[in-house]
C-alpha cells in the first residue's frame, strides 16, 4: 500500500507545471501536498489518479507495481473531490455503490460493504436522499463513503474541505484523522491550507511552481524550512525575515543587520559560515517576546521597536513592530503585555530556533 512517484514532469503545451517530482509514501502515511493555488499540486494528484496522462517523463508505482499507463480504475485508488462530484441524479445509496456495480461486485457483498461504510460515517439514514437534499458536511461524508467502499490502496483527496465552513472544517479534520488512524489508510491530501497540512499530515510535501520545495514531517517543515518559500508559506503570522550579513567575532557567528547583531553561534550551518556572506535570518513570531524572562541571553537579542499594529487573537496577541524599515511580528502570549499603537517598546528575539537562508538562492544554510 505504498506510492512512489519517480522523476515526474508534466507540461501543458509549453508551460511546465511539474518539474521532476520525486515522492515516496509508505503504508499508513498521511501525506499532505501543500502549496499555493496553481502550484501543480492538483495536477500531481490527477497524475497519480490516472486522470492526467504522463506523456513527458516519469513513472508512478503503487505497491511497487508500475501503473503509469494504467486506467484510473485499474490503479486501486479512490478519490474525493473538492466539489464532492456526487452523481446528482442518484440517491446516496446508488452514489456509494455505483463503483462496486461497475466492478461487478456480487450483490450481497455490495450490501455488506455499504452497511459497514455508512455506519462508520454515520450516514445510514441518508441512503435514499439525493445529493441536492444534503448539507455540505453530509455530502462530504457521502463522498468519503464512496471512496471507502473500494478499499483502495491509496486515498486521494483533492482539497476536500475547502467548501465547508470553518466550524465544520475543524470537525471534519478530527474525524478524518480518526478515520486514518482506524483504517491505517495511505492518504494523499491536497490543500493550500497550512493549518490542515500541519494538523493532518504525518508528512508534508511543499510544492511551488511545479517544484518540490521540501518533504518532511510537520515539525521538520515548520522548524527547519529548507528555503525561504517554505519558511514564509507555513506559519501564521508569517516568519520574520531579516536581511543581513554573516559576521564572526568573539569566536562566535553573528548575523549583522542594521546595527543589530543577532546571535547565531548555536546554529548548525551545513557549510562553514563565510564572513560577510549576505543572508536572511528567519525568526518565528512566537520567538519574539515582550520580556526577556528566563530565556537564555546567549541566543536572545533585545530590539527597540515602534508598535505599528496590534491584533488581538484572543489567546494571544500579534504585535506588528517596526525597526527602521524592517517589519517584525511578535506573538505575545499574555494579554497583560498588550502594547498600544505607536508605543516604543523593546522586544526580545530568541534566535535559538532560527533559520538562516542564503540571500541569493533562498536556500537554508
Amino acid at each position, binding site marked *: 500500500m505504498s506510492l512512489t512517484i519517480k522523476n515526474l514532469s508534466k507540461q501543458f503545451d509549453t508551460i511546465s507545471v511539474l518539474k521532476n517530482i520525486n515522492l515516496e509514501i509508505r503504508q499508513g502515511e498521511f501525506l499532505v501536498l501543500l502549496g499555493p493555488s496553481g502550484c501543480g499540486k492538483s495536477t500531481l494528484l490527477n497524475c497519480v*489518479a490516472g486522470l492526467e496522462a504522463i506523456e513527458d517523463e516519469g513513472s508512478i508505482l503503487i505497491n511497487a507495481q508500475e501503473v503509469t499507463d494504467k486506467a*484510473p480504475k485499474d490503479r486501486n*485508488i479512490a478519490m474525493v473531490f473538492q466539489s464532492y*462530484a*456526487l*452523481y446528482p441524479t442518484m440517491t446516496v445509496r446508488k452514489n456509494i455503490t*455505483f463503483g462496486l456495480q461497475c466492478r461487478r461486485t456480487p450483490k450481497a457483498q455490495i450490501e455488506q460493504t455499504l452497511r459497514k461504510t455508512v455506519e462508520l460515517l454515520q450516514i445510514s439514514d441518508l441512503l435514499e436522499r439525493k445529493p441536492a437534499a444534503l448539507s*455540505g458536511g453530509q455530502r462530504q461524508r457521502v463522498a468519503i463513503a464512496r471512496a471507502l467502499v473500494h478499499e483502495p490502496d491509496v486515498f486521494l483527496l483533492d482539497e476536500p474541505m475547502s467548501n465547508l465552513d470553518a466550524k465544520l472544517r475543524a470537525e471534519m479534520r478530527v474525524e478524518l484523522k480518526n478515520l486514518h488512524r482506524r483504517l491505517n489508510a495511505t492518504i494523499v491530501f491536497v490543500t493550500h491550507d497550512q493549518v490542515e497540512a500541519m494538523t493532518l499530515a504525518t508528512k508534508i510535501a511543499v510544492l511551488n511552481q511545479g517544484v518540490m520545495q521540501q518533504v518532511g514531517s510537520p515539525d521538520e517543515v515548520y522548524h527547519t524550512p529548507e528555503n525561504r518559500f517554505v519558511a514564509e508559506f507555513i506559519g501564521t503570522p508569517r516568519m520574520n525575515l531579516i536581511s543581513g550579513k554573516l559576521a564572526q567575532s568573539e569566536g562566535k557567528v553573528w548575523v549583522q543587520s542594521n546595527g543589530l547583531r543577532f546571535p547565531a553561534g548555536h546554529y548548525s550551518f551545513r557549510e562553514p559560515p563565510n564572513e560577510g556572506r549576505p543572508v536572511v535570518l528567519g525568526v518565528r513570531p512566537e520567538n519574539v517576546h515582550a520580556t526577556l524572562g528566563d530565556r537564555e541571553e546567549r541566543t536572545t537579542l533585545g530590539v527597540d521597536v515602534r508598535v505599528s499594529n496590534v491584533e488581538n487573537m484572543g489567546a494571544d496577541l500579534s504585535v506588528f513592530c517596526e525597526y527602521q524599515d524592517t517589519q517584525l511580528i511578535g506573538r505575545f502570549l499574555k494579554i497583560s503585555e498588550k502594547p498600544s499603537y505607536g508605543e516604543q517598546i523593546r522586544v526580545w528575539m530568541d534566535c535559538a530556533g532560527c533559520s538562516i537562508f542564503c540571500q541569493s538562492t533562498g536556500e537554508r544554510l
Partner: protein
Amino acid sequence: MRPPDAPFSWQRVALYFCLCVFLVFFLAPLYVMLMTSFKSLEEIRESNLLLPPQFWFFGGWSKAWDHACVGLSCNGVKPHFMATFAITIPALMLAVFIGALNGYALTQWKFRGSDLLLGGLLMGCFMPFQLYLIPIAITLRELGIFGTALGLILLHTVYGVPLATLLFRNYYVTLPPELMKAALIDGAGFFRIFFHIVLPMSPSIIMVAVILIFTGIYNDFIFALTFGEVGQQPVMAALNNIVNSTYGVKEHNVNMAATLLTALPTLFIYLVAGKFFIRGLTSGAVKG
C-alpha cells in the same frame, strides 16, 4: 407582500395599446381560419370574413380528416398523419440519441481534432437543404430507398444530428469535469457514464432538442415533397396537394380545417413539452 400597484401613466397605456395591436395582428389570421373552417361553403361566399358562423358546420373538418382528395386518393389527411408520424418519431429519436452521444463524446472525451469535427458537423446546420437535393436523390436511389419512408427517416436523422449535437454539446460542456473523473475512478466506461450519469441529467435539454427537431421534421416540406412515397406523403406535402389543387371548387372550409389539423401536433408539443423546460437539474452535484 404584494408590490404596490404601479401608478397610472400614459406610458403604460401606450405600452398596452401596442401589445394589443400586435395581439390582434397575430391572432386575426388564426381567428379567420377557425371561423371559416366552421362555415359552410355558401356562408363563406355570402358572409363577412370576420363574422362567426351563423350555423356551425362541421362538414369541412370531417371532410378534411377523412375524404378530401390528395391527388387521386380521397382519404383526407388522416393516412398522411400516420405516414408523418411513422417517419418523424423514429427520425426524431435517432437524431436526439445520436446528438446526445455526439455532444457527450465531443465534450467529455475530447480527442485530437474533436473541435474540428464539431465545426464540420455544425456546417450541416447552416447549409440550405436545396443544395443537397440532387446528391440526396442519387444517394437514396443507390441505397434502394428512394421514395420510401425509410429514405425520409434516414434523411431527417442525418439532418437532425447537427442541431442535436450543437444543443447537447453546449449543455454537456457545462457539466462539472469532476463528475467524469469520479466516474472514471469508479470504473465506469464510456457508455455506462453516458447512460447512468450523463443522460439522467439531461431531461431538460432532451426536451429542447425534441421540440426543435420534431418541429423541424414535421414542418419539412421540401424533402416530403421530393422524396415522399407516392400516396403516402407526409402530411405537409399532402396538405399542399389539398389546398393547391387547381380544379374544382375551392373548398375554403376544408382547406382551413386541414391546415389547422396539420398545425395541431406542433402546437401540442410546445404546450406539453414546454413545461419540461426546467433548469437546475445539476444542482447538488457540486457545491449547492
